[in-house]
């Protein structure tokens, strides 16, 4: 909560879009965890963050950033 912000929902809904369930299955977490990440209630581990970035074909810093940097 708080220090890390993300663009997961924005990137997921781009183009043809991807459901939360699809992203969850791709990354290996539950749909509820994806919901928590998108709403800022949970900051994922480095491994999960990298998997999410790879799913979007983006560098990890394009998906996650420190709140102070915005």
């Amino acid at each position, binding site marked *: *909560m708080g220090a890390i912000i993300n663009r997961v929902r924005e990137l997921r809904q781009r183009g043809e879009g991807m459901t939360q*369930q699809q992203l969850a299955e791709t990354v*290996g*977490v*539950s*749909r*509820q*965890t994806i*919901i*928590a990440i998108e*709403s*800022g*209630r*949970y900051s*994922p*581990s480095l491994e*999960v963050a990298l998997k999410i970035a790879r799913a979007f074909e983006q560098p990890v810093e394009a998906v996650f950033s420190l709140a102070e940097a915005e």
Partner: protein
Amino acid sequence: MSSMSFQEKSAWGTLTALLGVGGLYTSSLVNLWRADQLHIPSTFGLMVGFTILLVLVLVGYHILVAAITGAQDEDERDRLIGWRAGSIGGFVLAFGVITIVGHIVVGGLLQGGIWQSPAVIANLLLLAVFIATVVELAVTIWFHRRGI
């Protein structure tokens, strides 16, 4: 689809069952005390009976939830919440046990009557476990709802 993970549903169900069965147990205990029957044999019978009741309720609940929504493996967020809630529950349990030890020692020094009876001490220890478990479950639900 539900916004609650299987682990959160498990916590809600376990907390509800614990409070319900705990309330019935306490009520039975009070009745025993009023009838001046609060001793180890009756307390032991009560503990065994309510433990079996609690296990049956929890097994039934979890089977129902798994059948309706499907069981899920824990992911990293579930594990993190479990560890932190467990740690907090552990502190509460330690505090409770140390308090009861102090109660036993002070009671022994002052020769404190019924409050030193084995049945009362056994139930105080059970109360400490109960409170610690309730706190752990409540914190688990809090972390799932509000974030961690």
